[in-house]
């Protein structure tokens, strides 16, 4: 970062050091300067592909109770199961092959995390845009609600919701959406407020375009940068939260374990040295969350106009 004294700033022209033209190409070349972030991105792609293909690539179906045998339980990594198959990462307390359980668990963790993220984003963005665009009392009321929601720790809100609603994938998603939407709303409102003052919005208003059109077609696209950053970090945090809730016994049912549940199941075996039941799903969870955060962090640096050279 170059710090030029103020009396020279107006005279130093911006660097024309890269021969790239489109914003997308510039973005990509900026992003890829940090190799760790690129690694993070690759990892996310790999994980997503694995999760999507889980039903086809998993050696067994851990949900099919017919094939799961208690005789297989707690096998160490590399041992053979009743069916003759090798459990490369061992089996858990119910006899499920860890590799399969992890693939399916990954699938659930990702879909719940990303799914709730997308829904919360949609809701939050609409609320935030409305608050920023209409201002005044609407804004005040909405922001009060948002602030109150945000002043309570996510985990407690989610806990209480799940206690009342019960278990299940849909209820988990609802709880996660409730916990997340306010954060999106606040972020986009802040950005939209800044953008709203700018001239292109003024001209759109002068052209007598409908409010909806201005909000969606003019305002929203220019607020995308912080949404992308927040969205990425929120998905990671949603995945982590879901895992935590599952660990505590809430959210996903026992029959469809997410990674958190698998870890919880394995917890009791830690003391007796059967580490693999908790560790491997844990590593999978870890790798997922860390990569998403690495990417999100890098996105934040690249998309931040203030840090541009």
């Amino acid at each position, binding site marked *: 970062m*170059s710090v*030029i*004294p103020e009396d*020279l700033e107006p005279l130093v022209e911006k*660097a*024309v050091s890269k021969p790239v033209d489109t914003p997308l190409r510039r973005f990509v070349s900026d992003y890829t300067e940090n190799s760790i972030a690129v690694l993070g991105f690759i990892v996310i792609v790999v994980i997503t592909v694995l999760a999507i293909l889980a039903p086809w690539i998993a050696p067994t179906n851990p949900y099919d109770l017919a094939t799961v045998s208690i005789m297989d339980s707690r096998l160490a990594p590399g041992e053979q199961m009743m069916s003759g198959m090798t459990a490369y990462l061992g089996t858990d307390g119910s006899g499920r092959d860890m590799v399969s359980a992890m693939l399916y668990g990954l699938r659930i963790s990702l879909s719940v995390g990303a799914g709730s993220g997308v829904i919360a984003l949609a809701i939050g963005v609409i609320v935030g845009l409305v608050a920023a665009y209409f201002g005044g009392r609407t804004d005040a009321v909405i922001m009060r609600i948002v602030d109150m929601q945000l002043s309570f720790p996510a985990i407690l809100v989610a806990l209480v919701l799940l206690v009342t609603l019960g278990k299940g994938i849909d209820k988990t998603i609802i709880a996660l959406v409730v916990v997340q939407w306010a954060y999106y709303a606040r972020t986009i409102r802040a950005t939209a407020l800044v953008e709203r003052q700018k001239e292109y919005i003024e001209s759109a208003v002068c052209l007598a375009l409908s409010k909806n059109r201005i909000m969606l077609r003019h305002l929203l696209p220019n607020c995308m940068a912080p949404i992308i950053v927040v969205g990425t970090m929120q998905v990671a945090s949603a995945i982590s939260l879901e895992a935590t809730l599952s660990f505590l016994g809430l959210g996903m049912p026992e029959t469809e374990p997410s990674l958190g549940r698998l870890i919880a199941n394995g917890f009791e075996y830690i003391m007796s040295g059967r580490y693999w039941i908790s560790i491997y799903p844990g590593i999978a969870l870890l790798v997922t969350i860390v990569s998403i955060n690495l990417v999100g962090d890098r996105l934040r640096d690249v998309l931040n106009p203030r840090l541009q050279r």
Partner: protein
Amino acid sequence: METPTLEVRNLRTHFFTKAGVVKAVDDVSFSIQPGQVLGLVGESGSGKTVTGFSVLGLVDEPGRVVSGDILFKGRNIARADDTEMRSLRGASIAMIFQDPMMTLNPVLRIDTQMIEAITAHRNVDQDGARQEARDMLGKVGIASPDERLKAYPHQFSGGMRQRVAIAIALLNRPELIVADEPTTALDVTIQGQILYEVQRLCEETGTALMWITHDLAVVAGLADTISVMYAGRVVESGSVEEVLEQPMHPYTHGLIGSVPSRNKRGQPLRQIPGMTPSLLNLPSGCAFRTRCSFSTDACQVIPDMSEPVPGRTLRCHEPIVQHEAV
């Protein structure tokens, strides 16, 4: 002649940026005698602020003093290390910045910020330092200094904050003060008061003063000598009366001519045509060549510093001779 308090010889300070090398200060020379005031004049981007920072050793990355000498009372400090500079800064050489709003730390009290300037250099106890601070506030024209000491910067107006900054600069009786446009951000009336105070104090104490500004009017009233900078180089220097009455460099001439009060009412204001060039993209030869109505082919080569008259220096191939001046 006694040793000048400050003598700068062929100073070059360059910034090594990703976009290229910015020669902010490119072969600048001047000197200031004790008790004298030098007005360093130029537009934004002329390199005058960087010159001031270079003297104090406060040029930050990616900038560096590349070559040249900075002689403070005869001692060359251009390549002094930070410890040596730190003992000089605030004690023998003080600086006053341009923007009074941000020069004082908003979360610390005035007395804290004044006392630390004293105790950093001298072995004075808290009470003694406080007393000195109090006295100095009085000297710069701040009423009820005891209350003011306990206050925070945001409780002061811009003019008062700048007085505090001046007071801090004077606390350790420096021999040289570098003032970087200290009155630019203030009202004209306050500006007048502060100029008066500073002039008086410098006369009293024999402090040499380097006053950096773009405002010729200030220089006319305050300075003894003047150096005019353009695009990192000094283009003309000499005593204030001579330079302002009979400018030799076309740029100086243009600057003086463009001051609104010198134009007749009803006539269009005079300007220097064109814009200050980017320091990354200077014209070859004389940097002013592209805007100068007197330029010739000779100006394709950088003019050297010459001394057409004793006490005057000039960097120009085609100086304005008196009867040509309009």
